């Protein structure tokens, strides 16, 4: 590995800026280098990245293990899908609406749920997913039930006289990338802000935080809503990309996927979540070489993660990042 290659040199140059530049170029040029399959895989990673950021705020920063992410992801997907199909609204309207609706629905759900202790809270949030699915199946007049919403139009923009649609995988990649970059920056700003420090305080010791004047209850509620809003925005990307939203969107599979991304990347780190979503998609797609053994191998990967990478992969990356940061 490059780490050992450069070790013998007495003075090392700070390689961080060049590396970052390379990463940015790779991110921008990815659809041009790789096949559409690669672009598609990256889009899937980007779609999961935002809900994972939301979950990271909740699990990684505030210390609340939640499985409700799929429910808010589904609500966001349905919101965007319904708006796009019925009202043919521009993409940014759907995006904002999906985030707002998910965030707003999280308020009445969060108030009772956040009163619960650890395991009960986890189960309660899982319950939201199960109940969400039942509602989407049975509220047929709104959701078309099991028929689902299909043929969701491609995202289009209407900026003054200018109006254009995003069609094709490559352009969708750039759209998703832009949304994710903004989302990541927002998440980054959140955790860097004093509020982010208070979230960490809640995670570390809720009573102590409370005794130092931190209104823990309100923070938890706000973070729960924010994480739902992130999931909702991810749902909007999902709806527009796959063009289909069905009650299947409400399944624990997505909640656990997001949890795997957060923990695999490294909870409590923004870079961890970014890394985690790429890693997760890379892994599941790489395992496609053996379809029958794929999920078995995936299961083993989870065990490896739990036992050997308790803090996820981000600490390793951090170490690498610091190591290339020049000589001491």
């Amino acid at each position, binding site marked *: 590995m490059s780490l050992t290659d450069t070790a013998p040199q007495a003075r090392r140059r700070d390689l961080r800026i060049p590396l970052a530049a390379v990463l940015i170029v790779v991110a921008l040029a990815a659809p041009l280098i790789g096949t559409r399959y690669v672009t598609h895989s990256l889009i899937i990673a980007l779609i999961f990245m935002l809900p994972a950021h939301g979950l990271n705020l909740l699990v990684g920063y505030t210390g609340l*293990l939640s499985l409700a992410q799929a429910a808010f992801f589904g609500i966001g997907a349905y919101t965007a899908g319904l708006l796009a199909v019925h009202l043919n609204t521009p993409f940014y309207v759907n995006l904002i609406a999906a985030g707002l609706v998910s965030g707003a629905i999280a308020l009445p759900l969060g108030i009772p749920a956040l009163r619960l202790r650890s395991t009960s809270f986890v189960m309660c949030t899982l319950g939201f997913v199960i109940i969400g699915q039942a509602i989407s199946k049975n509220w047929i007049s709104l959701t078309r039930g099991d028929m689902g919403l299909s043929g969701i139009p491609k995202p289009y923009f209407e900026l003054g006289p200018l109006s254009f649609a995003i069609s094709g995988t490559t352009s969708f990649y750039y759209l998703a990338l832009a949304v994710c970059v903004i989302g990541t920056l927002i998440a980054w700003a959140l955790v860097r802000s004093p509020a982010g420090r208070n979230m960490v305080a809640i995670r570390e010791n809720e009573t102590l935080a409370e005794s130092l004047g931190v209104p823990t209850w309100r923070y938890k509620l706000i973070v729960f809503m924010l994480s739902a809003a992130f999931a909702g925005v991810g749902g909007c990307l999902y709806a527009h990309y796959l063009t289909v939203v069905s009650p299947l969107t409400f399944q624990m599979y997505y909640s656990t996927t997001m949890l795997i991304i957060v923990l695999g990347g490294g909870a409590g780190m923004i870079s961890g979540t970014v890394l985690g979503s790429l890693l997760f998609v890379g892994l599941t797609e790489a395992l496609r070489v053996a379809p029958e053994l794929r999920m*078995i191998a995936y299961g083993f990967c989870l065990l490896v993660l739990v*036992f050997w990478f308790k803090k996820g992969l981000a600490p390793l990356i951090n170490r690498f990042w610091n190591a290339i940061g020049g000589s001491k």
Partner: protein
Amino acid sequence: MFSTIIEQVINGIVTGSVYAIVAVGMTMIFGVLRAINFAHGEYYMLGTFGAWFAIDYLGLSYEASIVVAVLSTTVVAYVVGQLVMRRMVGAPAESGVLATLGIALILQNTVIFVFGGGYKFFAGGYIEPVSILGFSLAQQRIIILVVCLLVFIGLELMVTYSRLGMAMRAVSQNIQCCGVVGIDVPQVVLRTFVLGAALASLSGVLTAPVNVSVYGGMGELITFKTLPIIIMGGLGNVRGTFYAAMILGIAESLVATYIGLQFRDTVGFATLILMLMWRPHGLFSTQARF
């Protein structure tokens, strides 16, 4: 009208007793490990598969297949317990979720890989209906009810009087002190885990004749049914789990009758959430573990 309600309550109790046997294992594992076992339903599936294999491939009788199924699941559970569950003592909740999900994926898809994904037909058991007090039930369901009662009586006795039972109680009360008084915590966790898995597999074999279809993914659904039960029962509380399973069984049965079958799977979690709003610490005190 009234007799319909009675009949539905009986249906609920029969369903509840299946849930109870599976859930009690899960709740005991939670008691000693503080981890939700998302793979628990897979042992139920393994039990069913073991019995199906014994009947279809080895040509054994149903009774013999029960033994084969429970023993083979015990072996699998022992291996999983040694390699994974033992090491999860004191691990954070997130790790527990991921590790057990990983195990669930491995067990489920290994079975699919070995036996094929298609559903199998379970041939054994006593499916002839008998009439009791005007209600018609398959004989197998009466067996399930009786076994459920025996299992719970046995567990109560074991937990109160046996050495393992006392150690389990000790671990669930205060894990730090156990090391001091010479209890080998990982060993207790392992034994509890194997016992819980064996009970789940027993439940799988017993219900197989009435559930007929056997396939690799069947465990997941059972896991989701039992999750709300163990919370409602007060995590780690054996008796509470029994009552919670019965309550859920009856509630499901009534909902299926009067509201619609499509809402049945929602009943568990809806009841759970309503209950948690009313009593955030469960219906049955978590203090009175085991």
